[in-house]
C-alpha cells in the first residue's frame, strides 16, 4: 500500500520531490533535471514498474510556467498510482529530459506529447510526429490553436499539384456544439463555433 510511511520515506530519500494535494493518488512535483533519476529509482527501488501514461498540460499563453509534463506510474507491488508533475522552465522552447531509455513505454507517449504540444524531449532516439504528419506546422493541443483547425498544405506535393487540395478548417455550423468554461452564463451556452456560414454570410462553396 502507498501509505503515509511509504510517502514519508520516499520524500526523505528524494529531497528534490515535493508533495502536492490530490484527491486520487500520490502526486509529486519533480524538477526537470531530476526526472531521470526519479524515474529510474521508481522502477528499480520502489516497484513502480508500469509507466502507464505520459502527457502534458498547457496552462495557457499567459501562465508563468506554460507547460507541465505529467507522468503516471502504476505499481504491481503497491497496487496504486503515482503522478509526477514536471514543469517546463522555458515557455518558448519547452523541453524535458526523455525517459524513453529507462522506460520504452515513454517512447510513443513522448512523441505524442511533442506532436501535440511541441515539448522537446532531450535524448529521445527518434522524436518525430506520431499522430499528425511529419510536415505539419502546428501543435494542435496548445490552447491558442483553434478547434476548427488551420488551413494547412497537404503533405504530398505531387497530389497538391494535381488536386490543388489543402487541409481546410472544419466547417462547424451544425457541427459539434461547443461550450466555454468561463465567462458569463450566456457565453457558456453550447453553440456552433463556425462563423464562416451564418444567416448573414453565405455558405462557402
Amino acid at each position: 500500500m502507498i501509505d503515509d510511511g511509504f510517502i514519508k520515506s520516499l520524500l526523505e530519500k528524494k529531497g528534490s520531490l515535493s508533495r502536492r494535494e490530490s484527491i486520487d493518488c500520490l502526486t509529486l512535483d519533480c524538477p526537470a533535471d531530476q526526472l531521470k533519476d526519479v524515474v529510474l529509482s521508481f522502477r528499480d527501488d520502489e516497484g513502480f514498474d508500469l509507466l502507464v501514461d505520459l502527457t502534458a498540460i498547457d496552462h495557457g499563453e499567459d501562465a508563468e510556467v506554460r507547460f507541465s509534463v505529467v507522468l503516471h506510474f502504476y505499481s504491481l507491488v503497491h497496487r496504486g498510482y503515482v503522478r509526477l508533475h514536471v514543469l517546463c522552465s522555458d515557455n518558448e522552447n519547452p523541453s524535458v529530459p526523455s525517459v524513453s531509455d529507462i522506460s520504452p513505454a515513454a517512447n510513443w507517449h513522448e512523441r505524442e506529447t511533442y506532436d501535440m504540444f511541441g515539448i522537446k524531449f532531450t535524448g529521445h532516439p527518434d522524436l518525430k510526429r506520431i499522430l499528425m504528419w511529419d510536415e505539419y506546422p502546428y501543435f494542435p493541443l496548445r490552447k491558442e490553436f483553434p478547434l476548427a483547425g488551420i488551413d494547412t498544405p497537404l503533405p504530398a506535393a505531387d497530389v497538391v499539384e494535381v488536386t490543388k487540395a489543402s487541409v481546410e478548417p472544419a466547417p462547424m455550423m451544425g457541427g459539434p456544439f461547443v461550450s466555454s468554461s468561463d465567462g458569463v452564463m450566456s457565453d457558456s451556452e453550447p453553440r456552433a463555433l463556425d462563423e464562416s456560414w451564418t444567416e448573414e454570410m453565405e455558405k462557402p462553396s
Partner: protein
Amino acid sequence: MSKTVTKEISIGDVGARGSEASDKADSSLMALNVGPSHPTTHGVLRLIMELNGDVIEKCEPVIGYLHRGDEKIAENMTYNQFVPYTDRLDYLAPLANNVAYALTVEKLAGVEVPERCEAIRVLICELARISSHLLGMGVFGMDAGAWTPFMYTFTEREKLYTLFEELTGARFTTSFTRIGGVARDIPEGWLDRVKTFCENLPKATDEVEKLLTRNRIFLDRTEGIGAISKEDALAYGLTGPNLRASGVDLDLRKDKPYSGYEKYEFDVPIGTQGDCYDRYLVRIEEVRQSLRIIDQVISDFPSGLWYAEDAKKIFAPPKEKIMTSMEELIQNFMIVTEGPQVPPGEIYFEAENPKGALGFYLVSKGGGVPYRLKIRAPSFCNLSILEKFAPGHMLSDITVILGSLDFVMGECDR
C-alpha cells in the same frame, strides 16, 4: 522464426511515400509497405517493413490515420456532450468506454451512484467485453486462415447487438452513460433476454474452441509466434489480455475494483508463454469469466434508482420529472446549458477494458467543461511494442501477430 534461404532481391521504394525507412534501406533488403488500408491491419495501421527474404528485419508502425483530435474536442464541450465521442474510441466495446469516462468525471466530482446503476454498468461492461473478444477471436482465427470460427462468433455478436439496441437505442454507438448515472433504466424483460443469451453463448465458444484450440494448423501458426516476455510487456506498458498472456497478474477489476467489481467472484486467466496462442487462450477464458460475472449480477440485481439523485448539479433528472416539476426543469436547463458542475482538480482513472486499461486524465478548473482530457488508449501502448518483437518473424506471421494484439485504431489514434 525458421531460417529461409532466398536469393536477394532489390526493390527500392514500394509505395512508401516520404518514408525515411525506405530511403535509408539497405539495398539487399526489400522495403514493404503494408497499409494504411489493408485487411490484416484491422483498420488504418500502416507498417513499413524491411524484409530479408521472408524474414522481417525491421517493422515500423505508422499511426495517426484516424486521428480526429478527440482531446481537443473534449476541451470545448461539456462533460455529457463528450460521451458520444467515447463510443468512437474502442468502437468494438463502446459501452465499456462510456462507463470508464463517466466514472472518471464522477470521481472528480465526488458523485456516488446507487447500487443499481453500478450493477447496470458492470453488466454492460462485461457484455461489451464479450462482444469485443468475440470479434477479436473470430478475426484472429480468420487471420490464421480459419474462416468458420468467425461465423460462430459473429452470430453471437449479432445477438448481443440486438440486446444493446434494445437497451441503448443503438447497436454500435451506444452513448449510454451520463455523468452520475446512465441514460435510462433497463427495459422490462431485458435481463431475461441477457440471461438466455448467456446460457447459449458457451455452446458457441465451445464450438470455436473445438475448431481452433487443438487445431494443428492454428497451433503451428500461433504457438511460439510473437512471444512477449514479462519484462518487455511491462516495459512497453502493455495492459489487458496482452499483458496477462505474458504472465503478469494485473487486472484492474481485481486490483483496483471500481463500480462494485469487488462483489463478484471471477478468475483472472494468466498466460505463461506470452505468444499469440496464449493471447487467444486468455481471451476465450475471459469470455467465460465474464459470463460468470453476468450471472452473479443478474441473480442479485439491485432495485432502486439508476442515477445519483442527490447530484443536482451533475445529473439531469428523468424526463417525466422535468415535464411535471419546476425545480427539476431548472435543474435540467442548467445542466444542458452549463454542463455538469465539476470542482477544480485533477484525476487519473483507469478501467479494465477489453483491450486493456483505458485511462482518462482529467484536469478541471471548475465549471462544466474539462480543461484538459488525456485519453490513455490501451491500443496505442499495445502497438508500440510491435517494433520490438516483430523483427525475426516471417512476413506471414505478421497477420497473426496483429490479430493476436487485438487493437483498434479508433482508440489508438483518437
